[in-house]
């Protein structure tokens, strides 16, 4: 079983991202579960969402304490909170950032990757320039970094899961897929 944790801010769409990812994973024939942090979400405040993936039906209904990998939708969170809590050794930390993975330092042995999802989102006019919506873009990079499903399924899932600007979202995901920086 693979367990992922997404970090974002209230209003940034981390839950939608986790749902679309889950959908793409399901479409690929795997079993999946996605859920937000159980609590009150406040615009601006740090939030998390989770995804569980397995080859057999997922019976486990308890929370995720030790994720395999992290996906960080907003790089300013890294300063704000202790992002790596519970993250397994060798876990991937995929960050939406224009910086190179090597510029990020964490306590512990993790694999940092980055993608400039913000730039991509702005390019495809997803959200506004001041607050771009990066959640579909970053998913492109996610499935490159953590190959739990294919781009085709992701495209389908985006079609089902996004209400507007479907083509732009797909294009953004694809571009992100291609521009993931894996670090070392």
């Amino acid at each position, binding site marked *: 079983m693979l367990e992922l944790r997404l970090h974002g801010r209230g209003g940034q769409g981390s839950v939608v991202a*986790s*749902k679309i990812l*889950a*959908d793409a994973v*399901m479409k690929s024939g795997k*079993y*999946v*579960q*996605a*859920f*937000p942090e*159980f*609590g*009150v979400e406040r615009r601006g405040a740090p939030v998390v969402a989770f995804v569980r993936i397995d080859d057999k039906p*997922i*019976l*486990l*209904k*308890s*929370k995720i304490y030790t994720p395999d990998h992290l996906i960080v939708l907003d790089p300013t969170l890294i300063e704000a909170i202790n992002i790596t809590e519970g993250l397994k050794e060798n876990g991937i930390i995929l960050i939406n950032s224009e910086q190179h993975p090597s510029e990020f330092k964490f306590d512990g042995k993790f694999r940092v990757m980055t993608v400039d999802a913000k730039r991509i989102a702005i390019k495809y006019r997803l959200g506004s320039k001041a607050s771009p919506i990066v959640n579909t873009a970053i998913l492109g990079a996610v499935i490159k970094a953590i190959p739990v499903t294919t781009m085709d399924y992701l495209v389908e899932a985006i079609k*089902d899961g996004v209400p507007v600007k479907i083509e732009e979202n797909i294009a953004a995901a694809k571009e992100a897929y291609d521009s993931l920086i894996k670090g070392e």
Partner: protein
Amino acid sequence: MKKVLMGNHAISYGATLSRVQVIAAYPITPQTQVVELLSEIVANGELDAEFIKVESEHSAMAACIGASAAGARAFTATSSQGLLLMHEVLHWASRARLPIVMANINRAISPGWTIWTDQNDSLSQRDTGWMQIYTADNQEVLDSIIIGYKVAEKVSIPLMIVLDAFVLSHTYEPVDVPDQEKIDKFLPPYKPKIKLDPEDPHAFGGLTAPNIYMEFQYNHQQAMMEAKKIINEVGKEYGDITGRYYQNLSPYKVDDAEYVVITTGTISKTTNIVVDKLRDSGVKIGNLRIRTLRPFPSEEIYEQLKGKKKVFVIDRNISFGNTGIFFQEVKASLYNTDIRVPIFGFVTGLGGRDVTPELIEEIVNIGIKNEKPEEEVIWMGVKK
């Protein structure tokens, strides 16, 4: 069609497939997405229903009663404080024998304010005369709404579908959404047995004197007893068309088990993992999930527990001044039988405290280790 759905949306689809005609609901965390999606579905013209956006849950249930009595298939969904606020009219709906179906998301009761899961809200409605079905995954949630209408309309008793807050309501899982056609065959349009009709005018619910009131109660109870069978029958019928069978009880490896863990809701699923693990290490254990709380399937529980060594009931609830409620129900139902296996009552997971496989294993171990329960209520996962 398979979709990744949160439990709340599974409810909305279940209601849509049931072609509900009147929806009256009021928002409350963690139920809001039910109402929001239904608003959209109705606004998009995908469901021919009236949606009354009432000013409280109390009015939601009253409106459902009015609608149902006037001959429409009525639906609502709520949670916790909202359910509690409906209490008087819950009693009303059942004694009026109206086949309303509602979904309740199990959320703990305040104060302190809480939005997280436990079962005290729906369990403190156990004496309201409603049927209650506890579900364990989103697929079951959707299916149970549809089945629920068929059952409710057969026995003329309202039915509550219950699911865990967040653990189901907000968790996305793959769900097969059946075709409308299939469901239409399974669940034909509502044919009311009670109807406010100017062409055949009757008054409903008038003053009922001591010389006749009790006979209505007797009939209500008989219908409940009948419902034990009906739920299994309709569950089988549904299974025959969808491949998914639902019964009052959902046993997992109980047949040859020596130890049985009795659970409800999502804890059951996690328990199955523990059962598998312990079986691997040679412990003959099984899990009996109770789906139906009302009518209480005493006879079926008896059959399942006959010959077992020990039974461990896990309650995500507590009746203050007594014990966990499923524990109490199970014990009472077995008292007059020949079963005398020790039954352990564990209370855990209140107010959204996570119930992990480790905790369940600990519970099982306590049960196995001790000859009989040292205390009537064994608190688990609490900082005493």
